């Protein structure tokens, strides 16, 4: 069945189909309609769950830490400042190996206030031990939420799904809604081996030695490594049931390309549009969409960019004092390659600035003409 849904509605629909049992959320623009939709579904008994109307994002995630420790399947959604407020608990959730699924609708971090989208909020949570998947379309949000519950529960790690504020959260697209039986087949009820259970009492999260602490963190790192393959396997299984598939990185028009744009989130759609036109006039340009950011799919990136001369990274973020974060990570992944592609970092669409196919065409011309080179990041649409 196809319905017109925006990204937020698609997220809520996926949570319902995934049969989340405890949901705790605090409203924040542009996430609010996810919280409202889920609260409505629970109130109208369309979803059998506890909806906790907490007083902050810190408490939202703390509630889920508790509920997940009980063995329930849990979900929250937030944006920007809300995700920042959750920061301490993000570490707590991964450290306690809790399969929590979170949708963050990307929005700029104040100050000053902005309702625009960029990825600083989620990229600032890079080192918290959560998997991160960036989405291009509403359909992808829905599918990624369902896959993420399965992935999280298999790896015992939390997963964050990223959706660009307004561009994805509020724009309506036709979305194919899977049947409940199909979803149940792909995602059975959560089974827990470790939980807070009076019949089998254990202590969780108390003090440990440095060696044990490091071992536990290394185990998370090993599971992260494993996640790259597990995600691919689950995507295949998902495809066999639903007919759609996803990969950590997705190449587009890349085989004979000399220049490749790297895109994250909704900029991908704009870049596809530009590349389709550029290809018609014979320009050898391709695209690499990055869906998976944590774990970082280095090997997939190296394979995709083998033999490419120039890479333009459309970073919807900046690590102030350094450069775009995807650019940093990509450079680290490409370091061992010989020859290495030139990596040009473009801070694009930052603060929600609209990026158009024409804008990308202009950017491409400047790169070809050597006006923009690797080195300092180039700020697109920002004078001076």
């Amino acid at each position: 069945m196809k319905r017109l849904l925006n990204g937020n509605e698609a997220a809520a629909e996926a949570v319902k189909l995934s049969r989340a049992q405890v949901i705790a959320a605090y409203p924040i623009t542009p996430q609010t309609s996810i919280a409202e939709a889920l609260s409505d579904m629970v109130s109208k008994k369309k979803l059998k769950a506890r909806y906790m109307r907490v007083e902050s994002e810190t408490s939202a995630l703390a509630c889920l830490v508790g509920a997940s420790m009980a063995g329930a399947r849990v979900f929250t959604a937030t944006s920007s400042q809300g995700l920042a407020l959750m920061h301490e608990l993000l570490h707590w959730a991964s450290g306690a190996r809790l399969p929590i699924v979170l949708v963050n609708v990307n929005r700029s971090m104040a100050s000053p206030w902005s309702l625009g989208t960029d990825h600083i909020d989620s990229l600032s949570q890079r080192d918290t031990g959560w998997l991160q998947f960036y989405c291009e379309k509403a359909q992808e949000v829905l599918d990624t939420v369902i896959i993420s519950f399965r992935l999280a529960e298999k790896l015992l790690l939390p997963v964050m799904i990223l959706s660009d504020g307004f561009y994805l959260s509020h724009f309506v697209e036709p979305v194919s809604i899977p049947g409940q039986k199909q979803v149940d087949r792909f995602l059975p009820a959560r089974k827990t081996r470790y939980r807070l259970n009076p019949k089998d009492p254990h202590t969780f999260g108390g003090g440990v030695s440095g060696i044990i602490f490091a071992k536990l963190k290394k185990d998370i790192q090993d599971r992260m490594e494993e996640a790259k393959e597990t995600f691919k396997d689950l995507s295949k299984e998902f495809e066999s049931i639903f007919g759609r598939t996803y990969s950590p990185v997705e190449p587009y028009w890349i085989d004979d390309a000399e220049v490749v744009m790297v895109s994250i989130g909704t900029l991908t759609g704009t870049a596809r549009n530009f590349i389709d036109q550029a290809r018609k006039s014979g320009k050898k340009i391709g695209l690499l969409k990055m869906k998976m950011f944590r774990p970082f799919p280095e090997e997939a990136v190296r394979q995709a960019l083998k033999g490419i001369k120039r890479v333009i990274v459309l970073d919807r973020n900046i690590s102030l004092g350094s450069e775009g974060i995807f650019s940093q990570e990509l450079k680290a992944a490409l370091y061992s390659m010989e020859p290495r592609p030139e990596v040009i970092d473009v801070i694009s669409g930052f603060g929600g600035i609209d990026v158009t196919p024409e804008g990308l065409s202009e950017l491409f011309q400047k790169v070809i003409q050597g006006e923009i080179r690797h080195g300092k990041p180039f700020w697109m649409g920002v004078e001076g």
Partner: protein
Amino acid sequence: MKPQELEEELLSSGHFACPGCGETLAFRHVLKALGKRVAVITTAGCGSVVDGYWPVSASKVPFFHCSFGTAAATASGLKAGLEMIGDLRTTVLAWAGDGGTFDIGFQSLSGAAERNEDILYCCYDNEAYMNTGIQRSSATPKGAWTTTTPVQNLKEEPKKDVDAILAAHRIPYLATASIAFPEDLARKVKKAKAIKGTRFIHILIPCPPGWRFSSDLTVKLARLAVASRFFPLYEVESGKRYQLNSMPEKIPVKEYFRLQGRFSHFKEKQIDEFQTEVDARWEELLERMKRDERPCS
């Protein structure tokens, strides 16, 4: 008493508490009163450290260490999760110190109390951040020495009346309790266990290193805190019905103070001022009792 009526000890010896620790005594009584069908959430604080270091734990009940500011929220979520997986019986106990309750965890507690989450929240109050080594909290009494309120710059503000604030949330049950009155403490815990909604028990915990007293005086000090009316024992139902549990003989607070190094700098003037404050708070409490016209039990 018949042997089968003896309650099982759910806190083992060998924990990491200091000699004469009031917190472990309180935890032991609370667990005994609750029985095995319990899951405990604890925040950063003495209670989280003294339970033990991996791979040992002194508690014989499921025990989860949560972040400092989130005991009430984590406990609420745990209760919701247990219910959703079909466990409706387990009591969820949040066990937090005065830091985790009066200060850093206060928002989370207020939120849970306002939503009337089905949790039992016990605050073990030793009147300062003792786990980090005796720093002022909002539970520290006015004029008490701590490492962040040295004698040159003593705490000028009175102890936060957290019980009045929680009562104002109209939670179904609130009580103050003392390790010097273990039967009263156990009765309150059992009463709380049978009630649905947010239940709050505030237990004063004398702390030998933090209050600067000899470790054999813990229970005596707990008793003097009640007897001097510094820490009266009472219950509040639905935020309105107050009930005093004992009418303490009026021992001067001086008797309570003189055994504690943290008040050793007090001169007659400060003691008099403090006595006036204790008397005023006592009168306030009696006023609240009268409002409900319920006599002392």
